C-alpha cells in the first residue's frame, strides 16, 4: 500500500514526531511504500539543520533524513508554516525540501492512506 504521513508537531517537545517515525519504519519494514511525510504547523521544526540534542538522545532530524535516503521518502516542509517559524533553505536539514500545502493535498489523493500525527 501507499501511505502518506502528516506530522503537526516539532521534534522532542511532543511525541508526535517519534510516533510518526516509528510508524513509518514499521510500514516500510512491512513492505508498504511511505511516499511522503508532510511537516506542517510546528512539525516544520523537524527539518531544522541546527538542532543539537544531547548526544545520548535520539537524533530526530537526522534519522528522518536517513530514512528518506534509504527508502526514497519525500520529506516536505510546508513553506508558509516554515516562514512563520524560522525554517528556511539556509537552515533546512539534508533530505528535506520546502514546498507548498498542495503537496499535502496531493499526498491525500495519491496515497491509499494518510495518517496524521499531532498534538
Amino acid at each position: 500500500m501507499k501511505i502518506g504521513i502528516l506530522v503537526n508537531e516539532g521534534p522532542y517537545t511532543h511525541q508526535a514526531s517519534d510516533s510518526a517515525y516509528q510508524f513509518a519504519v514499521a510500514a516500510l519494514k512491512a513492505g508498504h511504500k511511505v511516499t511522503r511525510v508532510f511537516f506542517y504547523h510546528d512539525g516544520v521544526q523537524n527539518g531544522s539543520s541546527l538542532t543539537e540534542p544531547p548526544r545520548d538522545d535520539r537524533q530526530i532530524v537526522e534519522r528522518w533524513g536517513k530514512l528518506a535516503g534509504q527508502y526514497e521518502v519525500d520529506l516536505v516542509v510546508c513553506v508558509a508554516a516554515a516562514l512563520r517559524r524560522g525554517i528556511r533553505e539556509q537552515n533546512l536539514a539534508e533530505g528535506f525540501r520546502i514546498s507548498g500545502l498542495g503537496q499535502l493535498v496531493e499526498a491525500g489523493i495519491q496515497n491509499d492512506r494518510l495518517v496524521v500525527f499531532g498534538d
Partner: protein
Amino acid sequence: MSAEDGDTPGVIKRFLFVNRKAPYGTIYALEALEVVLISAAFDQDVSLAFLDDGVYQVLAGNDPSGIGMKNFSPTYRALDDYDITKLYVERESLTERGLPEDGFVVPVNVVSRAEMAAIMSQQDVVLSF
C-alpha cells in the same frame, strides 16, 4: 481502493477537515483554513467539520484586536467562491457551550452528533489539526 492511479486526472476523493479547537488560543484553526483553501484547487470532494471547541471558529463576532491578532473569520467567506460549501457544525457541541444554532460567519449545516459521525465514516481522507 488502490491509489496506484492516484495521479490520474479525475480521481476524486472525499476529504474531511476536522476542526475541534478554539481559534486564537492556538494557530490550528487558521492553518487548517489555509490547507482547505489550497485543497480547492484539486477538485476534490471537500467537507469541513466543526465540533467540540471548533464551533467557535465559525461564530460571527470574533474580535481579536485586543490580543493583537488578525481576525481571520472573513476568510471563511471565501470558501464559497471555491465551491466549498459543505460546512457541518455539530449541534451537541453548540448546546454544551450555550451557543445558539445561528449567528455563524458563513452558512453552515447544523447536524446532530450521529449525523456528524456518519459524515466522518464516509470519508477517504481525514485531516485533523
